[in-house]
């Protein structure tokens, strides 16, 4: 049974040479930035019990989780997320906050067949556990913005939303639960026509304040002016507090010079009640997908142990690699340009290695693994390499200058 032997699994890919180097470079730069801001790295296993991800208000579509059975009949998963396992670790091992954690690893999601999405994604991310309030959120976003810039990404937008802003409004609406869900879906979809129709049909149910705010909600996105507009429309205390939180985070980052990277969307509505406060989503102009996602999730830790505030975000490294690949000539950037090849017999191989390290004529030499000098010369002709060394014996070697037809000149060099 070897039908699939030569294929990669749908939604995965092999990464070769320069692309691989680029991706690793991005990860290294991100990790350096994380360390600068005092985040400590942790690594959790790729395999986790299904129970870890199976709670109410979980942020991941159950059907997308790769599941399998272990020898005891327990359900295991390939982790679809790294924040939730870190919550597990904090509750059971770290226990005491506040703590700043970073991570980098693969997650797995079984996406719909043939929709162009990856089933294996590399994510770097940050968690701040044990600190409520805006300072943690500013630190998270600041570190993420810096990490993106340090990796070479500059044309991105970080969008800020606030769960409590819209949830406090919805809580008070005199509508049945199902109607609330419908209204949320309409606003989430930015379906302005549909919203007007919905509101008009129920005009008498809403106060003027509620009506005015709901009507405007799908369009409350953009720059800082959105906060100002919203301050005029907001009418309940919890929403006002949520707006203040958003304003604080925005203005703090703006004062640090990052205003251009920010935008706001007060109708950033999620289907699950996973985020409990600020929500972040980051986009790049040329990609259709998110590169960052996160927020505050104060209810998460309580699923594992004591309730502790937490906030964090994850950065999609694969998307960033894809983005940067478009802008650089990878072959040029990473070419370890080989300028000469050294050949020796098996007996004299130690001399070949010593010689490579000495870089004769101050150029970059590669060691030949071919069986004969003739085969080595063939390789040089084919790859446009114009110098070759033949290690003759323990007295010395020949350096040959080549063109694409043959040896032009041959010089003898003695070992000292």
């Amino acid at each position, binding site marked *: 049974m070897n039908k699939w032997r030569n294929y990669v699994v749908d939604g995965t890919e092999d990464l070769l040479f320069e692309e691989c180097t680029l991706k690793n470079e991005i990860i290294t730069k991100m990790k350096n930035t994380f360390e600068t801001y005092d985040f400590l790295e942790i690594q959790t296993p790729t395999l986790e019990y299904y129970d870890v991800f199976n709670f109410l208000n979980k942020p991941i579509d159950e059907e997308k989780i790769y599941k399998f059975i272990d020898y005891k009949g327990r359900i295991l998963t390939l982790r679809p997320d790294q924040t939730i396992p870190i919550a597990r670790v904090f509750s059971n091992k770290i226990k005491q906050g506040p703590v700043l954690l970073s991570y980098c690893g693969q997650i797995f999601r079984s996406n719909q067949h043939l*929709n162009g999405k990856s089933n294996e994604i590399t994510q770097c991310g940050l968690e701040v556990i044990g600190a409520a309030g805006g300072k943690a959120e500013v630190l998270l976003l600041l570190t993420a913005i810096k990490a993106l810039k340090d990796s070479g990404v500059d044309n991105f937008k970080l*969008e800020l939303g606030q769960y409590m802003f819209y949830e406090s409004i919805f809580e008070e609406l005199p509508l049945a639960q199902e109607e609330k869900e419908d209204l949320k879906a309409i606003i989430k979809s*930015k379906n302005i026509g549909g919203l007007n129709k919905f509101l008009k049909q129920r005009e008498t149910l809403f106060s003027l304040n509620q009506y005015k705010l709901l009507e405007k909600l799908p369009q409350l*996105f953009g720059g800082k002016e959105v906060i100002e507009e919203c301050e005029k429309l907001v009418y309940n205390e919890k929403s006002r507090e949520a707006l203040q939180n958003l304003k604080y985070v925005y203005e703090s980052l703006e004062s640090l010079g990052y205003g251009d990277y920010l935008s706001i969307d007060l109708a950033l509505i999620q289907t699950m009640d996973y985020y409990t406060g600020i929500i972040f989503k980051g986009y790049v102009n040329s990609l259709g997908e998110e590169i960052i996602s996160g927020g505050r999730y104060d209810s998460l830790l309580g699923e594992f142990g004591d309730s502790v505030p937490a906030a964090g975000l994850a950065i999609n490294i694969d998307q960033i690699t894809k983005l940067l690949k478009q802008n650089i000539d990878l072959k040029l950037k990473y070419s370890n340009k080989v300028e000469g090849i050294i050949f020796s017999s098996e007996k004299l191989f130690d001399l070949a290695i010593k010689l490579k390290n000495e870089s004769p004529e101050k150029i970059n030499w590669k060691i030949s693994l071919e069986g004969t000098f003739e085969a080595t010369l063939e390789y040089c002709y084919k790859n446009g390499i114009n110098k070759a060394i033949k290690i003759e014996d323990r007295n010395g070697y020949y350096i040959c200058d080549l063109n694409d037809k043959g040896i032009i000149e041959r010089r003898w060099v003695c070992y000292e």
Partner: protein
Amino acid sequence: MNNLRIALTKGRLEKDVVKILKNVGIDVSELENKGRKLIFRSQNYPIEIVLAKAPDVITYVEHGVVDIGIVGKDTIMENAQDFYEVMDLGVGKCFFAVASLDGYDNKPSHYRKTIASKYPKVTHDYFRQKGEDVDIIKIEGSVELAPILGLADGIVDIVETGNTLRENGLKIYERICDISARVIVNKASMKLKKSEVMNLVEKLQSGI
């Protein structure tokens, strides 16, 4: 300022939308005289239009290679939803229905029906919401044939005038929901090109 790129569903929807665009004064001459072109630019408004089959409109919008798509709600209901659905254009009106030959509703209550449809997801969601367990067979076109050939007990399909059904001896048993053409927008495009998108949406709103 970059042009907004719009993917338009080929066929009848294309014609209806061209009418609306003309109504609001947007030049569509390149669309009306296609030649061999695949991308059509408006001469007086910063948009580019490409034509595609309905499910492909959604694919292009989701991947962000076009900013806006115009596609029927039936296709949206059948495919995944990772975009903003900002407007109902009010054209291409029809509805989803369960239809069949006589005798469809004369089956015993425990009988497990077989339903043929071009929209298996819509069919599945509808019957699931009714609490009914059905077998679904996907058929690509001329779905009315399925009950006539005895492949299925009934069909779920879009109905406009009902003429096709009547001519084939089928009748409507259940009306599922109304369908019309919608304007969808890629999420990143909405955020990054807010004013261009909203301007176009407002313009379209004024033309219907």
